[in-house]
Structures are given as structure tokens and as C-alpha cells.
């Protein structure tokens, strides 16, 4: 008898378990893959500075308290703006939807908060919003952001997944050195809207403090 035989043969038994449990994944995820990966036509990949900010969002794990997924309810669209569409996430690696809203959704925070506001808020949330339980991220004002890894990431996704970055994105160190001034220029635009003198000085010296990349990323969430 089939079942009797199965129970007595650990190898085929293990195989049977694997078949039963992979069934759902195969049917659910695989067929839809190409379609779900399609970006909206208006969607642009993030700049290197914004990517560096995204990596800080991951490093300091803002996802622990913030979502980036506006659900199609009136109460949410009133609060956060238009509900989220699949195509908006097509360049997000990893996805950062989150699963807990200890703080508000951030998917469109770039529409209603400014560089200046973020600067004050990240340094001391309570000063901006009394009663806030968000931690202050003072260390972001002194730590230096890893923009080189962000560039490496852009090149990798361009080569591996055809993310539309321009022809100047190449695997070589020389290409990175050539691109670096552009990142600093982007950083300077943010720093100009900030008040912190040390941050301004660092950017003038060709360094990007974490807070600048973080704000660039938050501003890009629209």
C-alpha cells in the first residue's frame, strides 16, 4: 500500500513532505513574478544618495515602527495621501512595507515634511511632537554615510536586474570616483536647507553625514 510504503521509507517520506509544502509557493509566487515586478512608467530609480539613505533606514531599522503601505481606506488616504500601488515599489530592494505602525506611515512623507523639519525631528522628536516615543537619532549627525556601498548597489541592480541607471554606472572604481562629485552635489543641496554647521562643514569637505542621506531618502518618498 502506498501510504504504508511511504511511512517506511524516510527518503521518499521527506520528498513527499517537500512536494506538499512547496506546492503553495510555486503556485502563488512564481506565475505572477514578471507582472508584479513591472514598475509604474513614472517611477524613477533612486539616486545614489537616496539609496544610501535607504540603507540607513535598514541599518537603523526604522521599519520596526514605520510602515510604507497606504491601504485603500478613506481613513488612510485622508491621513497619508493616495493609496499605494504595486508599480511604485518595483525598484525597492528590499521592500520596506513594514508590519507595525508604532509611528505613522511614511510612504508619502516627502509630500508634507521638509528637510528642515526632519533635521529637528531626527535630533529630538519630542521637541517637534510632544509625547513622541520615537528615539532621537543624534548619532546620524556625526556618523558618515556609506555612499560607496550605495553606488555598488546601483551598479549591481543595473547589471543584474536591468534597473534603468545611466551608462555612467559601471563596475569600476574609476567610474565611482567620477560619480562621487555628483553625490556630494546632491548632498550639498540638502545641507543648504539644514541648520547644523558641522553637517554643512562635513559636506563642504566632501563627506556625507548619515542625516543628509537619511533626509534625502525621506524626501524621495512621495
Amino acid at each position, binding site marked *: *500500500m502506498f501510504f*504504508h510504503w511511504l511511512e517506511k521509507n524516510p527518503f521518499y517520506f521527506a520528498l513527499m513532505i517537500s512536494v*506538499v509544502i512547496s506546492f503553495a509557493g510555486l*503556485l502563488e509566487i512564481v*506565475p*505572477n513574478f514578471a*507582472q508584479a515586478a513591472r514598475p509604474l512608467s513614472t517611477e524613477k530609480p533612486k539616486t545614489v544618495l537616496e539609496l544610501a539613505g535607504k540603507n540607513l533606514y535598514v541599518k537603523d531599522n526604522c521599519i520596526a515602527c514605520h510602515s510604507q503601505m497606504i491601504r485603500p481606506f478613506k481613513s488612510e488616504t485622508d491621513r497619508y495621501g493616495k493609496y499605494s500601488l504595486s508599480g511604485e515599489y518595483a525598484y525597492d530592494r528590499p521592500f520596506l512595507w513594514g508590519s507595525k505602525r508604532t509611528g505613522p506611515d511614511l510612504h508619502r512623507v516627502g509630500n508634507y515634511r521638509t528637510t528642515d523639519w526632519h533635521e529637528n525631528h531626527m535630533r529630538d522628536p519630542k521637541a517637534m511632537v510632544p509625547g513622541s516615543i520615537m528615539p532621537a537619532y543624534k548619532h546620524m549627525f556625526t556618523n558618515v554615510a556609506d555612499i560607496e556601498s550605495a553606488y555598488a548597489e546601483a551598479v549591481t541592480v543595473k547589471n543584474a536586474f536591468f534597473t534603468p541607471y545611466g551608462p555612467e554606472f559601471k563596475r569600476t572604481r574609476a567610474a565611482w570616483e567620477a560619480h562621487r562629485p555628483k553625490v556630494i552635489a546632491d548632498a550639498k543641496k540638502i545641507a543648504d536647507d539644514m541648520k547644523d554647521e558641522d553637517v554643512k562643514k562635513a559636506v563642504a569637505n566632501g563627506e556625507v553625514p548619515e542625516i543628509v542621506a537619511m533626509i534625502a531618502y525621506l524626501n524621495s518618498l512621495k
Partner: protein
Amino acid sequence: MDIQNIQGYGMFFLTIFLTVILYWYILYLYRSEKKGERDFEKYGRIALDDNIDSPLVEDKIASERDNTKEQNK
């Protein structure tokens, strides 16, 4: 036929298929016990008599010996 349809049909028939197998399995479990072919509840003893010298419910070494005997026949 687009991908959604294929997924839908695939889902439907595979679920039916696995449900049939599951019910077949239930039938098998209870029928073979009723007919006296197998006793499943005796396996429950494995957890209770688990000293290294406790009696085995089904002896692997002995049954392999029997198998080779059969093949040599």
C-alpha cells in the same frame, strides 16, 4: 488564456487532488485498522517504551533480514 486563469485552474485542480488524497488517507487509516491489517495505535507505545532495551514495535534489522530472504528465494 492569461496567467490568472491558469493559476486559478491550477489552484482549483491541485486543491481537489490533494483533498482527495487526504480523504483517501483517512479512509486508508481507518479501513486498514478495521480489517485488522494494521494497528496504528501500537505506535503510540514507542514513546513510552523507549529504553534502549525496550521491546521494538517493528524491528528494522529483523525485517531487513526477512526482505533479503524473500529476494533470495
